[in-house]
């Protein structure tokens, strides 16, 4: 049985007069690791944010983990974790406190081992305002792990990370895979995506331009450089 963890039909979203996402229909099998490719501004982040219910779709719909993103927002949210461009942190609080805030809303105890896992134990009690971009990314990753979600959406997770961070993220993704979670990862790192992911989706100007096995993914969209 191949249940779909993510299923979208005609999904569209606009910012002002520009369509960031238009008429995207796709399905992602539960338990698969999918790469989301596309140039800057092709709609990758918008797609992930719509799937995470951070943005409402303007047209079309999506089901994530079996629930409707419009009508069953809270049920979707219980099963989805998003690592986005914004790290969702309070600058004035420490790393430990930030995780504690998230844990208190999740009704969980603060898992201290997560900070060690992402390599932040030495700076756990420093305010996030003093963190570098890479450290913020690590903290955001710890928060995603805390959520223990069925569907994990990673928006350029490798950005700003150092080489040990790359290795950490590779490990995390393979652990998520072995746990049976579905991962959709937007990234520009084609080689890494081909190696880590099962399937790939490519967006071009808000539309789905290519989909298939990650190993066969072209470096550019098929109609990549067409200019009318």
């Amino acid at each position, binding site marked *: 049985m191949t249940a779909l963890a993510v299923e979208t039909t005609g999904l569209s979203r606009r910012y002002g007069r520009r369509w960031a996402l238009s008429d995207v229909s796709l399905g992602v099998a539960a338990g698969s690791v999918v790469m989301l490719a596309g140039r800057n501004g092709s709609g990758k982040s918008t797609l992930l944010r719509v799937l*995470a*219910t*951070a*943005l*409402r779709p303007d047209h079309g719909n999506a089901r994530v983990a079996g629930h409707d993103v419009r009508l069953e*927002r*809270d049920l979707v*949210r*219980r099963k*989805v974790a*998003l690592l*986005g461009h*914004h*790290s*969702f*942190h*309070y*600058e*004035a*609080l420490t790393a430990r*406190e930030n995780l504690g*805030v*998230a844990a*208190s*809303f*999740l*009704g969980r105890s603060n898992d201290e081992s997560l900070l060690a896992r992402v390599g932040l134990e030495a700076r756990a009690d420093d*305010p996030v305002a003093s963190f570098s971009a890479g450290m*913020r990314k690590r903290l955001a990753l710890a*928060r995603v792990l805390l*959520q223990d979600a069925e569907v994990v959406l990673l928006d350029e997770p490798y950005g700003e990370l150092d080489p040990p961070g790359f290795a950490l993220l590779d490990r995390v993704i393979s652990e998520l895979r072995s746990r049976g979670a579905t991962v959709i990862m937007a990234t520009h790192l084609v080689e890494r995506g081909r190696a880590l992911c099962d399937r790939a989706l490519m967006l071009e100007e808000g539309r789905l331009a290519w989909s298939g096995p990650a190993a066969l993914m072209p470096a550019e969209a098929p109609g990549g450089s067409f200019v009318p």
Partner: protein
Amino acid sequence: MNPFVAALRKDLLLQWRTRSQLVAVFVFGASALLLFSFAIGPNAAALRQFAGGFLWLALLLASTLALADSFESEMAQHALEGLLLLPADPRALYYGKAVANLLQLSLLGAALVPVMVVLYDAGTARVPALLGIIVLGAAGLSAPGTLYAAMTAQLRARNTLLPLLLFPLVVPALLGAVKATSLLILGDPMGQLGAWTMLLVAFDAIYWSLCGLVFERVVED
């Protein structure tokens, strides 16, 4: 943990960490009181008469700064959105923030009272009653103020729009608080304090329930 308690804890922790901002807001309010006194000049009776009004004007002006600050940290890294996606109950987030803002504004108001007493020679023997009025008035500012700050924090023109939306709305709360404070300072021969307190209570009851109801519509996309 109860989501409201979690939200309140988070907001109190945030306010504790940014307490230097609160000190700055207090200095702003105190200097507003000082400047207002120049509008009257060295006339002891007039100063006493207007002390209550100026106290609340100073608190109102300072409150727009404090309310906007309280959403600054939520918006910087989209922390509020992150909590909503967990998911956290938006009503709990609203009431946590509104109660934290109420405490902060009450503290600010209480701290401005000695400044008023010194500058305007406007003391009162009924200190607990005055503190009660300050809490009720601060509640009237914080309930709609928290809602509108959540709205305007997402906009470019936030600094203009928050007072533009908030000031006309809080007229009844302000009138009630000013009158009650003045009655406490100047004496209340006709026993009107109760009516003004009731007005404040009614305003607070309406807006604390209504704003909690609509907050979700304001913060969700």
